[in-house]
């Protein structure tokens, strides 16, 4: 539900029912042009199942988030880890140099991102 918000307990139950029906309809016929797909960053095995990130954001690494104070100092991994995220976990050439074909040694001077991130340089094809 995007345009109406459940307020009372019955509405929450109605909403759950509708969402389950929609999920079932999508599963039954993903190609149905009448089924307007919601764009969501989470997928779930059912209306009550756990919701997990899908696609390239399988893990939420620093850079995607802030710490409880709204900054980046208290993250569980250094924020600079983000520089590597999209080309190690999955290939995403638009954001970082293409390390597979054209810039294989792009990170060679950067052993520890938190300390050495300044040594990462631009790559000119």
């Amino acid at each position, binding site marked *: *539900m995007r*345009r*109406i*918000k*459940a*307020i*009372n307990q*019955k509405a929450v139950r109605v909403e759950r029912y509708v969402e389950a029906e929609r999920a079932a309809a999508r599963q039954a016929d993903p190609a149905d042009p009448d089924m307007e797909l919601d764009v969501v960053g989470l997928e779930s095995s059912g209306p009550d199942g756990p919701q997990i990130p899908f696609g390239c954001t399988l893990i939420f690494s620093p850079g995607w988030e802030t710490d409880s104070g709204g900054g980046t100092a208290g993250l569980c991994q250094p924020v600079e880890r983000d520089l590597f995220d999209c080309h190690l976990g999955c290939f995403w050439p638009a954001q970082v140099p293409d390390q597979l074909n054209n810039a294989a040694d792009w990170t060679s001077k950067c052993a520890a991102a938190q300390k050495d991130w300044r040594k990462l340089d631009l790559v000119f094809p």
Partner: protein
Amino acid sequence: MSTRFAAREYHAVEAEGLRFLYLVPSAAVFCADDAASAVLDRLETAPDTLEGIEGALSSRFPAGEVRSAVADLVEVRAIGPEGAEPEPMPVKAPPEGIPLKTMVLNVTSKCNLGCTYCYEYGDDRVVEAGTMPRFMDEATAKQSVEFMLGEAGVGERCHLTFFGGETLLNFKLLQSTLQYALERAEAEGKRVDFSLTTNGTLLKPEIIEWLADNEVGVTISIDGPKEVQDKFRVFNNGMGSYDEIIPRVRALLRRHKSKPVGARVTLTKQNLDVIGTFRHLTDDIGFWEVGFAPVTTADGRDYAIEGEAYNEMLRQFEELAWEWLEYAVEGRHHGFSNVGETIEEIHKGFSKSHPCGAGVGMLGVSTDGNLGLCHRFAGSEEHRFGNVTDGVDRAKQVQFLEEHHVAYKPDCHSCWARPLCAGGCYHEAHTRYGSTKAPNLHYCDWIRSWTDTCLQVYAALAVRNPEFLKHFEH
């Protein structure tokens, strides 16, 4: 040709600048955003196709937003294809085995007051005086407890209410029954709590001690300040009861802190000062909560509330309801129990097949041990549902519940307030129209206006202090 959509059954209220929808019959409450609200505005004027709606709203909202608003509103059935038949109401008696939650024990049919408007003794009585034993005996009370525990759900809390006549005229029976119920409940692994209603005239220190020690919830029937109380609530010799009860009630309120003590006010044409009475009973006397009910009466009695008097009552109810909201926003207790009860039903989304739990989770027991629809019918042969020894007459119960389903009240079918009202009190209908099956058409406008106010208060509270609504989630 594309489907034309039309508004379906809902009641909209505005609160805090937002539009809230009370959907009928689901009783779900949704808050609509601007796009959904604009779609509803459009369809309330005339049915239209999706393309038509998109076109009309294109200057204000992208087509995608309008489309998802339409999809959401269709799914919750706020709108639907034009001319679609309303879905048929499933007529089913509640399934067997619904546990008994509340048993009201009429421990005596005798009273030491002679209130003019009394439904038990007055002109509108259901049971003729003298047809019942004046007092319930101990064997019947014990059998009633056995019946209640047998019908109560495992592990559930059930509730035993002592009622009259004047309940405290049979105080000895209250003592022995409470003790017996506690022992038997413990042996059965069930839990029971207690309450009673009294006119307050017989409260004395040892009774007050007993009430407090045993955590008995107490409701005092009282109509307000002296001049109001003494108008109808009089002793048999005509003397007013105010001076007699007030010191006793004050003593009760001082000592009894284990359960909230409430006041229950009967409103009549001569007593419509709701706010004055509320202030007197809470601020001056110290009641935790005060509930008001218009007198149940046949039409034409000189104390009956009619016509303009309903509007006056409503105006004051509304004033107290908005005051209740301000208290709730600050997380404080207010004490106007009529609004709290309705807000709870709205929050849970009750959609009633029957107006109340009478005959389902609640039964009344007359002094001779017969089961009645509720305490107001206890002792009436016509409304008997078995007795505490042989149990509930299931066939009669099922027949009653089927015949009294809101589906058989066509007058209610076009009313948006039916999920909460379902036709109103059986006893009121019986008194006014001679049949428990009749919807209470004399107060429809009143119920709709009051429900509308409560919906506004609810919606405003959901925006301003949603945490407070958790109080209603027990």
